C-alpha cells in the first residue's frame, strides 16, 4: 500500500508542470554551478602554481647575502584549494590566500578574494551547495504542502481513510513519494558532480571520496528532515493554504534568516578582539615576555650570561659559534611562544563561534548542515587554521635553518658573512595537504549530532502526525 501511494505521489509530482519547471531550474543550476566552480578552481590552481614557481625562483636567485637577511627577504606561500571546493566554496572567498613568511613575525593570511569583487558577490555565489541548502527545500515545500492538507480539503482523504487504508501507510507513502521525486531530480546532478570531481586536473587527494560520501549523507539527511517535516505539517493542518503559509515561513526562517541571525547573535555573545588591541598586546608580549615580568632585553642579557657560563667564556666573541645567530634562534623561540598564545586565542575564538552556530542548528537545521558541508568540503575555518598553522611551522623551520647557518658558519664577530644559492636551494619548499576525512569528521561532529537529532525528531513528528491523521480538522 505504501508503495502504491508513494508511486501515486511521484507520478503526481512529475505531472505537475510547476514541479517540472522548478526541478529543471534546480538541476541546471546545480550542474552549471559545478562546471563553473571546477573551471574557477582549475584557474586558481594554475595561477597559484605559477606564483609558487616564481617565488621559488625569486628565493633561490636572491643572490649572496647574510642568512639572517635572507630570513627578512622571506618567502610567500599560497593556499591550495580543497578539491571539494568545487561543491562548496565555504569561507574561501573571505580568508586570505597568501602568507608572507619572514623572520621575527607571524603574519596573517592576506588578500581576500572577496575584496577583489563587487558587493554583488555577497548577494550569494552560485554553488551546488547553495542550491541544495536553499532551493531544494523550497521545492520540497511546494511539493508537500498540499500532499495531505489538499486531499483533506477536497475530501479525497476521507475516501481513502474510509477504504480502510492505514493512516501510517498514507503518510509514509506520501513522504516516500516526495522523497523519490527529489531523489530522481538529484541523482543525475550528483552523477555529474561526481564525474567532474573524478576528472579534475589534479589527482584527488586522499580521503576526497570519503568526504564526498559524507557530503551525500548529510545532504540526504537534511532533505529527509525537510520532507518528513513538510508532510507532517501538511498532515496536521486544516487547509493547504495554512500548510503552505507555515512551511514557507519555516523555510524563510531556516534558509534566509537563521544564517545571519545566528552569526550576529553568536558574535554578540562571543565577541572578537579588536585588531588594534590584538596587535598591540602581541607586540607588547614579544617585547616584555608573556608573563610581563622580564623585558626582552633582560631576557637576552640573562641568556647571554647563561651561555657564557656554560662555555666558560667571558666574551661572546670567544664562543665557538656565531653568537648573533644563536641569539636569533633563541629570540625566534621566545616570539614563537607569544605568537602561539595570541593566534591560538584568536583562532580558538573563531572556532568557538563556528561551533556555537553549528549547535544553533537545533533551532534551524540549515546551520548544522552548512557547517557540516563546509567541514567535509574542506572549506571551513578549521581547515583554514590547519593551513595557517602549517605555514607558520614552515616559517619557523626555515628561519631556524637560516639562523643555524649563521650561527655555525659565520665566524664570531664576522659581519660580512654571506651565504649563497646552495643554502637557499637546501631549504625545503612548502607543501600542504588537505586534512584527512577523519579530521573533517571530528570537526563536523557537533553538526552531525544536530542533524541526527533533527532526523529522529522529524521522523517521530511524521509518525505522530500519522497517528492523529483526521479526514477533517475543525
Amino acid at each position, binding site marked *: 500500500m505504501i508503495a502504491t501511494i508513494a508511486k501515486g505521489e511521484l507520478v503526481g509530482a512529475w505531472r505537475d508542470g510547476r514541479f517540472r519547471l522548478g526541478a529543471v531550474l534546480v538541476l541546471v543550476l546545480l550542474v552549471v554551478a559545478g562546471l563553473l566552480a571546477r573551471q574557477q578552481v582549475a584557474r586558481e590552481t594554475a595561477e*597559484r602554481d605559477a606564483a609558487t614557481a616564481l617565488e621559488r625562483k625569486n628565493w633561490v636567485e636572491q643572490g649572496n647575502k647574510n642568512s639572517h637577511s635572507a630570513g627578512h627577504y622571506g618567502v610567500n606561500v599560497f593556499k591550495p584549494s580543497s578539491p571539494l571546493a568545487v561543491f562548496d566554496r565555504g569561507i574561501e572567498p*573571505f580568508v586570505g590566500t597568501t602568507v608572507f613568511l619572514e623572520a621575527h613575525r607571524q603574519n596573517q593570511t*592576506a*588578500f581576500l578574494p572577496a575584496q*577583489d569583487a563587487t558587493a554583488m558577490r555577497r548577494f550569494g555565489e552560485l554553488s551546488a551547495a547553495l542550491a541544495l541548502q536553499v532551493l531544494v527545500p523550497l521545492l520540497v515545500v511546494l511539493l508537500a504542502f498540499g500532499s495531505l492538507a489538499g486531499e483533506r480539503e477536497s475530501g479525497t482523504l476521507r475516501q481513502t481513510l474510509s477504504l480502510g487504508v492505514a493512516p501510517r501507510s498514507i503518510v509514509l507513502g506520501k513522504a516516500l513519494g516526495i522523497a523519490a521525486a527529489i531523489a530522481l531530480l538529484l541523482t543525475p546532478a550528483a552523477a555529474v558532480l561526481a564525474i567532474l570531481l573524478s576528472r579534475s586536473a589534479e589527482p584527488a587527494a586522499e580521503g576526497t571520496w570519503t568526504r564526498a560520501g559524507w557530503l551525500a549523507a548529510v545532504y540526504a539527511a537534511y532533505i529527509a528532515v525537510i520532507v518528513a517535516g513538510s508532510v507532517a505539517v501538511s498532515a496536521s493542518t486544516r487547509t493547504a493554504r495554512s500548510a503552505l503559509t507555515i512551511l514557507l515561513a519555516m523555510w524563510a526562517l531556516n534558509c534566509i534568516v537563521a544564517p545571519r541571525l545566528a552569526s550576529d547573535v553568536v558574535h554578540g555573545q562571543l565577541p572578537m578582539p579588536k585588531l588594534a588591541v590584538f596587535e598591540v598586546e602581541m607586540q607588547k608580549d614579544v617585547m616584555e615576555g608573556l608573563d610581563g615580568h622580564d623585558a626582552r632585553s633582560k631576557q637576552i642579557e640573562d641568556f647571554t650570561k647563561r651561555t657564557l657560563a656554560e662555555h666558560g667564556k667571558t666574551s661572546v666573541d670567544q664562543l665557538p659559534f656565531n653568537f648573533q645567530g644563536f641569539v636569533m634562534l633563541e629570540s625566534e623561540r621566545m616570539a614563537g611562544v607569544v605568537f602561539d598564545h595570541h593566534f591560538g586565542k584568536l583562532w580558538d575564538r573563531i572556532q568557538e563561534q563556528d561551533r556555537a552556530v553549528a549547535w544553533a542548528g537545533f533551532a534551524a537545521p540549515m546551520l548544522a548542515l552548512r557547517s557540516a558541508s563546509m567541514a567535509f568540503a574542506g572549506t571551513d575555518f578549521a581547515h583554514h587554521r590547519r593551513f595557517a598553522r602549517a605555514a607558520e611551522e614552515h616559517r619557523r623551520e626555515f628561519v631556524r635553518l637560516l639562523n643555524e647557518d649563521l650561527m655555525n658558519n659565520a665566524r664570531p664577530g664576522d659581519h660580512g658573512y654571506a651565504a649563497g644559492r646552495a643554502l637557499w636551494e637546501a631549504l625545503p619548499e612548502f607543501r600542504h595537504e588537505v586534512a584527512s576525512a577523519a579530521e573533517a569528521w571530528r570537526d563536523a561532529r557537533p553538526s552531525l549530532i544536530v542533524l541526527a537529532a533533527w532526523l529522529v525528531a522529524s521522523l517521530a513528528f511524521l509518525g505522530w502526525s500519522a497517528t492523529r491523521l483526521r479526514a477533517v480538522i475543525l
Partner: protein
Amino acid sequence: MERDAAPGGDPVKSFTLELRLFFAERATWVLLVLFAVVLVYSLANGAAAGRTARDSAELVEKDTFQWATQVREALERQALDPRQVAGRPTSALLPPAPMPALAVGQADLLPAHEQVSLWRLEKPSEGRSELENPSRLLAGRFDLAFVLVWLLPLFLLAAAYDLCAGDREAGTLRMVLAQGVSPRVWIARRAFARGAPVLVIAVLSVVIAGQIGGAEGVGARTGFAVLVVIAYGAFWLALAALVNGYARSAAAAATALGSIWVLFVLVVPTLLNVVVENLHPSPSRAELVAEARAAASVAEKRGNELVSSFYRDHPELAPVGMQGDMMSRMLAVQDEVGRAMDPVKQRFESAILAQQEVVDRWRFASPAIAMHEALTDLAGTGYWRHRAFRVQVETFKDQLHAYYSPKFHKRAPLTKADLPNFPKFEFIEESSTAWRSRVLAGLAGILALAIAAGVVAALRLSPRKLAA
C-alpha cells in the same frame, strides 16, 4: 462600466473598510509585530556596526594626532632629518559612512584606513580594519538593508498574496464582480490597504536609521531611501496583483509569488555574479605578489645604477660626491619597482570597476539588486565611496612622495617652517550629484518595473477576463 459602485461608493470609506477587514485578522497583527521586531533588531545591529566604525576611526585619528604633536614638538626644538619623519607611515582614513545604520555593505570587508609611507613596496598585509570571523562575512549581516531587500517583500506578500485568488477559489469573485465594482480599483485598494501598514513601518525604520549616527546632510539620503523603499514595495504589490489575475487559488498565488521571490532575490543575483566574473575576472593576487618580488630583485641588482641614473636626471638632488647611501638606494629601487608594478595593480582596480559597471547596467534584471545597490550607495558603504577613497589614497601617495622624496635624497633638514606643508590626507566626499544620479537611476528603474507590473496587472484585471 468602470465605475466604483456600491458597496464601496465612497473611496475613503471603502479603503477604511478594507483596512478594518485586514486588521480584524489576528494573523495581521502577528505579521506586523514580527516585522517590527525584525526591523528593530536590524536597526540595533546597524547602530552597533556604526559605533564600531566610529570607534576605529577615532583610534586612527588619535594616533595621527599624537604623531603630529610629537613631530611638531620636536621641530620646535630643532630641525629634523626628513628620514625620521617620512619613514613612518601616515594613516589615510575613510571617515565613518554618512548613514551607517542603513546598510553595513562592504564596510565589514574593506579597510577604512590605509597606512601610507614613502616606501612604496608594502608587504602583503591583512588589508582589513577589524578582525572578523570569515563565516560571519560569508553569512552577511542582519542589517536594515537585509530586512528591506530580502524580508520586506516576504512580509508584503504574506499580507497581500491573496487579493482575489481566494475569492475566485471560493466562488465569491463573481459575486463581487456582479455588483459592478471595478476590479482594478477594488484590487488596487486591497493591495494598498494590506501593503500600506507594512510599508509604513518600513519607512519609519528608514527614518530612524537616518537619525542613528548619521552624518550631516543625511536628510536627503533618508528621503531617497524612503522613496526607494516605497518603489520597491510598490513593485511587489503590483506583482501580487498581477499574479492574482491568474491564480486559481490562494495557495497557487502564494506558490507563484514565492517562486518569483526566489527567482528575483536568490537566483538572478547569483547568475549575474557568474556573468560578471566571467566577463571581467579579477587577476591573480598570488601572481602579483610573486611578480612584484621578481621585479624587486631585478631592481635590487641594478640598485647602484638606478641611483646614479636618478642623480644624473636630478643633479639638484644629488648629495656631495654623487654617492647615494643605502637608504637613498633603497628608495630609488622601491620607486622603480613601484612604477613597474603600478599598471599591474591597476588591473585589479579596473577589473572591479568593469565588474561594477556590468552590475550597474544589469541591476534591473532584478529589483532586489537595484534596491541593494541603491541602499548601500545611500548608506555610503557600497562600492563607489570606497573606490573614491582608494583613488584619493593613490593620489595622496604621489603627493607624499613628491614632497618627501627630494628632501630625502638631499637630506635637507625639515624645519618648523615646513610644518604647514606636510602632506595630510583628508577624504573628500563624493559630490552629492554623483550619488544622487546613481540612486535616481536605480529609483527610476525600480519604479519603471513597478509600473510595468502594474500595467500588466491592470490589463489582466478587466472584469471580462476575471470572470472568465
